[in-house]
């Protein structure tokens, strides 16, 4: 599944890292690192993290795979 975080909005509150620690991690005191392509098995956790982010900085793919350029999908 695909994820992107708008790090200009993110203020490092770490809610996401608490709720989905395999996908979101703090790096140092306040920088967020995330996996933009976590396993589908983490979908629930990731959606919960996205909903909990106070800055609404996390965007999760809405329509997995649809309208992709034919034969060139990368994930």
């Amino acid at each position, binding site marked *: 599944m695909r994820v992107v975080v708008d790090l200009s909005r993110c203020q490092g509150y770490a809610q996401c890292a608490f709720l989905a620690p395999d996908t979101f991690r703090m790096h140092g005191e306040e920088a967020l*690192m995330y996996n933009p392509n976590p396993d589908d098995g983490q979908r629930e956790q990731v959606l919960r993290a996205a909903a909990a982010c106070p800055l609404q900085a996390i965007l999760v793919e809405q*329509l997995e795979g649809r309208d992709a350029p034919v034969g060139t*999908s990368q994930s």
Partner: protein
Amino acid sequence: MTSADTLKGFKRDGRVVIVGASLAGLRAAEALRDEGFTGSLTMIGDELGEPYDRPPLSKQVLTGWVPAGGTTLPRRRDINAEWLLGVPADGLDLATNHVHLADGREVPFDRVLISTGVRARPWFVETEAALDGVFVVRTREHADGLQRALASGPSRVLVIGAGFTGSEIASICRERDIPVTVAELAPAPLVGALGAVIGDVAADMQRAHGVDLRCGVKVTQLEGDAQGRFHRAHFDDGSTIDADVAVVALGGIRNTEWLRDSGLAAGPWGIACDTGCRALDLNGLITDDIFVAGDVARCPNPIYEYRLISLEHWVNAVEQAQVAAHNMVSAQADRWPHLSIPTFWSIQFGVNIKSVGVPTFADEVVVTQGSVPDRRFVAAYGYQGRVTAAVSFNNAKWLDHYRQLIETAAPFPPPCPTPDEPVDAKPVPVDFPGPRLLAQGATVVVTGHDPGERRVTAAWQHR
């Protein structure tokens, strides 16, 4: 037909072509559909595969956490587009409204969005750039190659250029316990973007993490062995360094060559547009149907004296895409100006570096909050007595406050909003490297005498 009818017809079955299928292009396509555009939408891109995100390339991907193919951008919605990928556009004909593709195809449009971004500036000697072990980092393929090289345990990595990308790569080398030398022409890292005061902080940070940082030096030659593998670099002071990997991180070149004969105000500095993302033609006139967004755009910013500013910032690409898409399907009176204050982030050596505003638009800088030795502080930038930018090291939650100061033209130096004002909070000259960049690249020549016939033609220079 009224212009309202024309617009309605265009929204229903007009033809929009987006050239450059990356962050700005994808976000614009989504916004066009959000705005109710139901006509045909064509995405042209010279890279294969779906649009992907670049910032993780020099962070998550190079640490080995995420494979390079795993940064495909999530979709906000279905865009129902025709995708023409793996082929560059090589011309734009404004007389007949066609995009030419390098394979000979012609794509007609009613409105076009140009979001062709920048590419990595390659090492200046082609044979040396082609050596095994010499990398740039702009695309997924680049990041993949460099990740593999880092994983194979090089004896040393040489990073050429200590801007944001070069510094992030140096940081990752240290995280992976790989010896790294950074060579930078300026007196310190990040100086071109943030000035000498922050540059000194960045230099201390690199050295504290074991980076062999060499400033004020120029790499003159990359030397290969008999197998064509990079193994040594020569500096202009006569010294050399042995390494297995060289990363050329010398910034980007704007992808505008394909617009050479288009009559647009495009060149090495980007494509000039208004705050509504409508392109200017060579004469400085606004075009009606040509829009630009992202790294390739050069927009006036009223807060910065309406100067034309190009930014290689993620949020800027997203926001301009939104504005351009809205304006493509709106009547003149409903158009939006893009007026947001630029923001940028970088992660290096475990520190979250963020900025608001345009730090290069400044004559003074002062540390207003926190502690430089602890690498937790905010520095404010001022120009002729008003606040124009701020940079935070591990103190990002304050940047909204500084954004408001910039928006309201607050006096500089600003008062410290918290009790953690450093004792020696005195503004000092910001000290950027000279204006050598301003002199680069193509200019134009003006011909004709009467107002009705005076025109500009481009004088392209190559560098």
